[in-house]
Each structure stands twice: as structure tokens, then as C-alpha cells.
């Protein structure tokens, strides 16, 4: 515990920068995420900003069922985000591969590839649900909530090989 800890905690609560990674999404979730930035939802009031570079980000938002080509890129981008960081799985695809489950080109679901902290269900999820999910991610980032327990045995795969999901 240092003197600045309360200040840092508050800063993390009020300034979450997102990096959005599309891992083979149909763009439905992406459009709903962009809707959060528009006047109706305006997440900038909460200090949330969509950043172009993963180096600037705190929260990684992933949409899509994780295709074979996107898998390695996802791992690279995840490693590029400086700690502390959280991962939000946006929509049904990264949670369960949705209608793409069983396809030979799909490596997902996302928690085989990256440690996911928050799942936002829906196909696509409503912007309200996305904001609620990001708020939960921010709580994990600031240390207000514990990170979810990793599954045992660990699901995270080192190689990007298809066919994990049946």
C-alpha cells in the first residue's frame, strides 16, 4: 500500500481506454460497440475512450469466434497491452463460437486463447449490456472485484489449432 494507491485506483475507475479486436466477427457486435460512443450512450462521460493502439489500452474488447488467422494476432495484441489489463468477450461468438461452432477454421471459444475476465452475452449485445460489461471490467481493473477463477484444468491453449470446440 503506498500513498498514491487510492488516487491510482480512482484514476483506473475513471479512465478506461479500450482496444477493440475483431477476431472474425460479423460486424454486428462491432457496430453495437461503436453505438456506445454516439450521443445516445456517450461513454466518454465515464472516461471510456476507444484507442487505436493496443499500447495505450487498458481493456481489450474481442468480438468474433476467433478464426484460425486471427488467433496469433490476438495473442500478439494481448501481449502488447501493458499491465494491468482486462479482456472483455463481446457477444456470443467469443463465448461459445455461436453458429460457427465445429467449423475447421474456428479456433475459439476465446477462453482457449486468452484469459477472459468478462463475458457480455447477446447476438449482438445491446449497447447498455456492453457498457455494463465494460463497467464490470473496470471494477476488475481497479481491484474492486476479484478476477474470475481460471477454469481447471486450464483451457488456455498455447497453439492456434482448430477443433477444440464440439
Amino acid at each position, binding site marked *: 500500500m503506498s500513498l498514491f494507491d487510492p488516487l491510482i485506483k480512482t484514476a483506473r475507475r475513471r*479512465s478506461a481506454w479500450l482496444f477493440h479486436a475483431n477476431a472474425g466477427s460479423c460486424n454486428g457486435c462491432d457496430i453495437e460497440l461503436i453505438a456506445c460512443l454516439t450521443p445516445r450512450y456517450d461513454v466518454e462521460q465515464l472516461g471510456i475512450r476507444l484507442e487505436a493502439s493496443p499500447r495505450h489500452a487498458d481493456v481489450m474488447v474481442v468480438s468474433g469466434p476467433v478464426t484460425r488467422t486471427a488467433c496469433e494476432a490476438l495473442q500478439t495484441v494481448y501481449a502488447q497491452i501493458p499491465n494491468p489489463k482486462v479482456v472483455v468477450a463481446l457477444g456470443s461468438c467469443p463465448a461459445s463460437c455461436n453458429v460457427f461452432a465445429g467449423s475447421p477454421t474456428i479456433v475459439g471459444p476465446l477462453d482457449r486463447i486468452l484469459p477472459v475476465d468478462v463475458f457480455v452475452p447477446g447476438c449482438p449485445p445491446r449497447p447498455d449490456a456492453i457498457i455494463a460489461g465494460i463497467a464490470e471490467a473496470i471494477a476488475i481493473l481497479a481491484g474492486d472485484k476479484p478476477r474470475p477463477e481460471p477454469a481447471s484444468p486450464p483451457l488456455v491453449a498455447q497453439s492456434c489449432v482448430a477443433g477444440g470446440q464440439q
Partner: protein
Amino acid sequence: MSILRALFALLVFPGLLYAVPAAFLMVWLQRKINARLQGRIGPPFYQPFFDVTKLFAKEPIQRPRLEGLIMTGLPLVAVLSTLGAIALLPVFPARGGFSGDLVLFVSLVEIGPLCAVMAGFASRSLWGGLGATREAVLSLAYNLPFLTALVALAATTGFSLSGAAVSASLPVRVLALLALVLCLPVKLHLNPFSTASAEQEIYAGSTTEYDGPSLALWELAHALEWVVLAGLVATLAFPFAQTAWPLHVIAFVVISFAVVVVLAIVAASTARLKLAQTARWFWLWGFGVSLSALGLAFVRL
């Protein structure tokens, strides 16, 4: 006494104690006006402060030693030189020292963009290099009218900005200030001349690879650039020479923030120009305005 005055200028006003909160407020004001004009509510006033605090608290990415040193050193130099330039602003009537020295001021103001160019290439990222190239081309474009306007203003006072506003004639002042204000959006990476940082288009330009504390220093350097450039216009637009110092201070702050409001409204209502368009625009219109100011200054009109 001169040392005490210089320290006061550097650490209290218009230096550190005023500049950092003012910088955060100016960045917030720009974001807020942008949001309001788009029909959004926009960030709360403490947003830039928490952004920078959060970035300072992030764990830096492990890099090779020299690369890490360069990538922290460059934004640090940018912050310090911009702070030095703020301290040189002739808010109070100068009595000796470097206050208002045109050559030193211009070099300190230019170190920031120079560091940004080097930082983009030093990060060895494609997008960083692209942003750095654009920044370098733009600095060639805007420095021509910017420096010409400053020389026109200071023509009667001999390479000093102290009293330059009062000693130059009205047409020279109006034209030179117009040229200076035209150069501000490109120096602050605002629309319509936001080609260098080009948010989302080339990722984050020269700061693409910067993370945590070094990015926080960039954010701080950029915010301080707001204070120094708006403050430059404020000191030169202030029309009275011998008045009480509180009036100087109030006018400095009020005009600075008024400049920020104008720039923010222009930025929110325009779209980004291409690199070649921006360069041509500055060499044609910006240089035209400042050259006519210089001409008027030399024929003593």
C-alpha cells in the same frame, strides 16, 4: 532578483503551478466543446488529470535498455522544453533576463515537435514512422508563416517578444496574430490540420508504440503545448503596456482560454485535410498573411 523572477516564472506563473492545471483544463475544454457540438455530454473536468495519472501507474513494457531510455527521454525533453517556453512568455513587462527572447522561445517551442518526429522513428513502428514523417513535413509547412509572423511582430523590438505587441502598428499586429492563430491547429494536431496524429487513420501516429509512463509524458507535453501556444497569442494580443500586473495576469488567462474555445469550435466543425493540401494551404495562405505583416512592419506602416 532576476534569478528569483526567472524561478517564479518557471515554477509558479506562468510556469509549473499554473501551466499544468491550465493544460489539463484546456484539453478538457477542447474535448468537452467537441462533445457538446456533437450532441454528447462529454467528459468531466477532471478527465485529463485521471488519464495521465492512470498512464503513469501502468507497468511499462519491457524493452531493450537503450530503446527504453530513448523512448522515455524524448517525451521528457518535450515536457521540459515546453515548460521552459511557457516560462519565457512575457506576461509581465520584462526587466532583463531571457524573458520574451524570441530565438530561445522559438527553439524551445520547436523542440517538442522535433522530439515527436524522433520518437516516431525511434519506436520502429510503421505507424510511428508514418506519423513522424507527416509531423516533419508539416513542421516545414507551418514554420514558414509562424516564424515570419513572429519576426514581423518583433521587428521593432529586435528579436524580443516583450513589448512587441505594443510597439508594432495595428495592421501589423492584426495580420501577424491572424497568421499565428492559423498555425495553432496544426501545431496542436487539431482538425482541419490533424494530419500528423490522424486519430484512427494511422493508429496513433508517432505515439503508437508508447505505453504507460512515456505515453503519459506525451499527453502532458501535448497539453502543455496548448498553454504555450494559447499563451503566446494572449501575450501578443494584449494591447496595453503599462497597467497593473493583476490586469496582465487576468487578461493572459482569459485570452488563453478564449483561444482554446475558438480552436475547439473550428476543430469540431471541420474535417481533416490531406498532407499535401495542408502544406500547400500554409505556404499559400498562411505565408501570404504573415509576409504581408512582415512587409508592413519593414515599411513602418
